[in-house]
């Protein structure tokens, strides 16, 4: 679990518990019980768990209490607080659909084989207005076969992510994977959530043959990398799939050129450069990749000035556009961006983390040998995708001296990459 964002609010355990226990009408204007409930994730203690359970049992229907209560449910799940199962079970009958959703999810995190709880979860499939995906995932994770036929009814659901989860779960529970290509097809769905969430279903079913399709899916590389990595982690140790099979798709994804993606959007008419620059700020990365591709094909000459301008104005503080600006400077092989790319490579602010690997790849496109020590320094970080991208970048600029160290890295993917490439070099005359 990525814990970069867990400690956003500067509260002690005592302060967070006291805040969560404060009646809503006695709170100061600036206090938030929601924040307290979020923050208790940092304290896996009996006291915190009891405070969270008290908060879940407070059923005041005001919006502020509702959201604090829901967050408490989620945090109990994250803390895997088994003793909270009866409290969470009671939440399954709550009128608030999001409280129910969080309770179902939290029960899955904690894990149970209590058939009364599992049957109550399965019956939620008949309740209108619920998020069925989390219910289906939980029933699959807890292997509740009696729900199979009820889940099967949802395989043609009009909501694509629901259908995706249902198809994947029916495959898991029956062992018949013949329908999984329908889930693979959702990687090209016009709705960004259908694309992102189908990757989760492919992970859950360990559907290794979809790795090439995931690599070409037009969503943020965060989702693609997570999918490919989790599939590799499941399949390589068991021998179901070899690292060598995964490697080209993993590296294609880390490189992340828009030409290697099957884009789902298209322009009716050729847009101008200012429009394309604005598209880099979109939250659907499929649109950003289309803009990037179009900039490269039609505006390569004018693009660098526009990119510097948008960086100075806004992209320096927008983690999405920041990423695409770094990538574009690389694809444009724009040497004057060197300093900016080195700065991005070493940027430690967590929200800009994906720009670091992007900067590594972009620096290798520039081919400036000054980048070699900068890239080698990246091999010392704890961030696997940055290290992997740095190895790829160093390879491209002709420096393979980092492989010996990388072959002993803590991360198995880095070790696999380094070892394999060392072998290749030795065996190549």
């Amino acid at each position, binding site marked *: 679990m990525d814990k970069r*964002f867990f400690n*956003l609010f500067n509260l002690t355990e005592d302060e967070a518990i006291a805040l969560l226990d404060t009646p809503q009408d006695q709170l100061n204007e600036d206090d*938030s019980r929601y924040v307290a409930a979020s923050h208790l994730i940092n304290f896996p203690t009996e006291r915190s768990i009891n405070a969270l359970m008290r908060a879940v049992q407070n059923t005041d229907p005001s919006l502020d209490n509702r959201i604090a209560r829901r*967050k408490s449910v989620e945090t109990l799940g994250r803390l895997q607080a088994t003793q909270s199962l009866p409290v969470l079970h009671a939440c399954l009958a709550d009128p608030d659909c999001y409280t129910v959703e969080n309770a179902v999810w939290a029960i899955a995190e904690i894990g149970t084989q209590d058939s009364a709880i599992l049957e109550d979860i399965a019956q939620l499939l008949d309740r209108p207005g619920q998020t069925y*995906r989390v219910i289906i995932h939980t029933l699959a994770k807890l292997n509740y076969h009696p729900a199979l036929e009820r889940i099967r009814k949802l395989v043609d659901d009009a909501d694509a992510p629901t259908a995706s989860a249902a198809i994947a779960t029916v495959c898991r529970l029956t062992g018949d994977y013949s329908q999984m290509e329908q889930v693979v097809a959702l990687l090209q769905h016009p709705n960004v959530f*259908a694309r992102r969430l189908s990757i989760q279903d492919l992970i859950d079913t360990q559907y290794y043959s979809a790795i090439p399709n995931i690599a070409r899916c037009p969503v943020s590389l965060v989702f693609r990398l997570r999918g490919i990595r989790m599939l590799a982690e499941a399949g390589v140790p068991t021998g179901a799939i070899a690292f060598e099979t995964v490697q080209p798709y993993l590296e294609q994804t880390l490189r992340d050129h828009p030409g290697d993606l099957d884009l789902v959007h298209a322009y009716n008419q050729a847009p101008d450069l200012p429009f394309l620059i604005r598209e880099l700020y979109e*939250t659907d990365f499929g649109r950003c990749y289309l803009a990037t591709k179009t900039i490269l094909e039609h505006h390569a000459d004018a693009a660098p000035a526009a990119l510097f301008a948008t960086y100075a104005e806004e992209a320096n503080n927008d983690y999405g556009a920041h990423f695409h600006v770094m990538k574009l400077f690389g694809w444009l092989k724009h040497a004057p961006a060197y300093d900016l790319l080195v700065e991005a490579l070493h940027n430690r602010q967590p*929200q800009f983390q994906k720009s670091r690997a992007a900067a590594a790849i972009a620096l290798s496109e520039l081919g400036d040998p000054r980048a070699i020590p900068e890239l080698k320094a990246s091999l010392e970080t704890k961030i696997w995708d940055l290290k992997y991208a740095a190895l790829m970048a160093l390879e491209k600029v002709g420096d393979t001296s980092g492989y010996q160290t990388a072959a002993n890295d803590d991360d198995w993917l880095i070790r696999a990459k380094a070892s394999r490439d060392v072998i290749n070099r030795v065996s190549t005359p």
Partner: protein
Amino acid sequence: MKSVVTTVIAAADAAGRFPSSSDLESVQGSIQRAAARLEAAEKLASNLDNVAKEAYDACIKKYSYLNNAGEANSSDTFKSKCARDIKHYLRLIQYSLVVGGTGPLDEWGIAGQREVYRALGLPTAPYVEALGFARNRGCAPRDMSAQALVEYNSLLDYAINSLS
């Protein structure tokens, strides 16, 4: 795109019937509130950047320790996360005002987003805090008429409720 009108027609069509009188009442209600919604949509659109900036500035002010040098996760985490995503949610709220239903928020902002936040361990508190500020900050008649503010605030509440 789901709205009161499309929901009513879809339900009637699914049952092979004409819209009932209560269906027509809900359409009528939606149409009556349309002027207020469009006023709110127009005011929000013309002031989107300021509303988003104020919302996240308020968060930074509220959690002032985040501005201290060397604090864990640094203030910029919070700030840029809010700046980008708050604007996205406000845009979806604006679309929802135009549509007269929560379709744009549901389809583009909420369905699936909760799963993504959970799977990636991303914090929802910054959005909730910032949208909460935007809700408390709105003022009639300074920013818009009282009816328009009711429409705007109800969608902010809807977004806060469904993201948290």
